[in-house]
């Protein structure tokens, strides 16, 4: 511990530092074997839906140059398991973590029901995933259309008035700023960006896609410049804070996001590759900031 104060306030919730986990790349029971969750500013949990989802058939993972594709398809045990006394949320709160609960749905109604349940839980904030490229209906259907995204945000906000609502944006759009503005107008308290980019790899021996589903979502260092640009463009026009993600694997990647206008940063794929990545990046960031202050 270096003793410097890196705390940030994200729409009313105090984060002890600006580093979070990205949804789908953290699991309390497994990640806690490597670091305690209260060391980070916030833990974003895997997307949960009203009913359990099975996800897509395998293979669901493919490596790409400097990145990876996934087509998990939001496999999750359902919101009741998540909220149960032995569920992930209770465990995280017991461990002193700040928690952002990521929710998913197929329909407006499913999203609203999920938001309502989280609203009366211990979670500190809600992240609305309208950008998953891996589910047939829901997800991107909302994230791609500024009007649909705004309407959904407004509806969901009505069901969780007391909790900060963060809307997670998709990069798979012509102009991300129009979606960002639309959800801000509809009452989003913050946005997080970016979710994965649609992509595909083909096995040239078999002549067919590597992923069983065909396409998947691209993440990791390969997408970092795309994310930095999108954060930069959105920061120019938004009044609400931006939580940035996409390819952060070292402190300098996080700094790029801060200079682009983000208030906090989440680490995803880097944690798949090294369980300790979020805390390593945080330590490196603290050191960089101290070194700069001391003019090194």
């Amino acid at each position: 511990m270096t003793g410097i104060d890196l705390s940030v306030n994200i729409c009313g919730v105090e984060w002890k530092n600006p580093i979070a986990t990205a949804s789908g790349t953290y699991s309390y029971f497994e990640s806690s074997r490597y670091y305690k969750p209260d060391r980070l500013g916030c833990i974003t949990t895997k997307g949960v839906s009203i009913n359990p989802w099975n996800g897509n058939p395998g293979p669901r993972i493919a490596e790409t140059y400097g990145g990876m594709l996934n087509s998990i398809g939001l496999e999750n045990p359902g919101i009741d398991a998540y909220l149960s006394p032995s569920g992930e949320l209770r465990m995280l709160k017991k461990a002193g973590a700040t928690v952002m609960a990521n929710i998913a749905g197929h329909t407006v109604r499913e999203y609203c029901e999920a938001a309502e349940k989280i609203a009366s839980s211990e979670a500190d904030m809600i992240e609305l995933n309208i950008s998953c490229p891996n589910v047939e209906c829901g997800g991107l259907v909302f994230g791609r259309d500024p009007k649909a995204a705004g309407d959904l945000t407004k509806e969901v906000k009505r069901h969780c008035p007391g909790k900060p609502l963060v809307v997670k944006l998709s990069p798979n759009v012509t102009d991300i700023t129009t979606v960002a503005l639309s959800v801000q107008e509809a009452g989003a308290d913050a946005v997080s960006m970016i979710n994965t980019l649609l992509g595909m790899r083909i096995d040239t021996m078999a002549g067919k896609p590597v992923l069983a589903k065909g396409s998947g979502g691209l993440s990791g260092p390969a997408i970092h410049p795309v994310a930095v640009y999108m954060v930069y463009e959105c920061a120019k026009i938004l009044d609400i804070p931006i939580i940035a993600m996409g390819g952060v694997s070292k402190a300098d990647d996080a700094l790029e996001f801060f200079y682009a206008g983000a208030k906090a940063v989440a680490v995803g794929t880097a944690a798949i590759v090294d369980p300790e990545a979020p805390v390593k990046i945080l330590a490196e960031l603290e050191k960089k900031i101290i070194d700069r202050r001391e003019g090194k």
Partner: protein
Amino acid sequence: MSGMREKYRIVENDWVAHGIFETVVSAPQIAEKARPGQFLNVYIPDGPMLLPRPFSVSDVRGSNISIIYKVKGGGTALLSELAEGCEVEALGPLGTGFFDYPGSLTDLGRDHFADRKVTVFLIGGGLGIPPLLYAARAIKAARHGRAQIVAFLGYPGDPWYTKQLLNHVDKVFSASDMPGRADISGTVIDAMDAKARGYLGDRETANAPALICGPEAMMSAAAQWCAGHGLKSRVSLEARLGCGYGVCRGCSRVFKSPEGGEGPYMDYSGTKRTVKKVCVHGPVFWGDEIIWKKP
């Protein structure tokens, strides 16, 4: 806290058979903890190849740990070319192994019949064979003379690694699809049909699960052979992994589960199902919980 992702020094990097290599790293922290059937995440020292390559622990010798692998793509090719003295990063040991349940063959504290003599079948195919060696050594170490180990090994082509195995098991039957290359011409199942029955008369065999590791089609046939002969089995599954330690759900697979569990699975026959992660709940599972993929 688990072992972290760390750098380890390569102490040996040897050719084993056509396209197959053994890499030995000095990794006291891993060697101390690794149990048979567990695996390591190995990170290829090449920036853009981000994802870990999972390899089963094929042996532990002192503070050294050995993996044996086939060169498949870019990652294994690069690994096989690293010189002794180079460093590679690894995370582990990971996963649930052959004996990671109470009262297993090596858990004599819980085994009320620790004194009995057991016969254990090892059934391996191709690259699934080396991890069985470490399992055999563990059984012998725990039970001393009170275990007879019989290995049935299937190869596409010439057998390899049988000599190393013979140091730790009592009998090896090899099978090859190339006539005249091995003890039996045909599959590992042909070898079991021909030779295993002789050992089944031994009543204690029934209490000792067979250990199975190899390609899925071979494992499916072997597990069904065992079930048909009243034998339980422990099977090491393979899957495309992302993280290898349980956070990404890249490796999930649906299993039979009498108690039910995670997920909405209920099939028409009323058998309950559940989702498990191959990387943490496995890679070794009970043969009778696996829903085999259609070839």
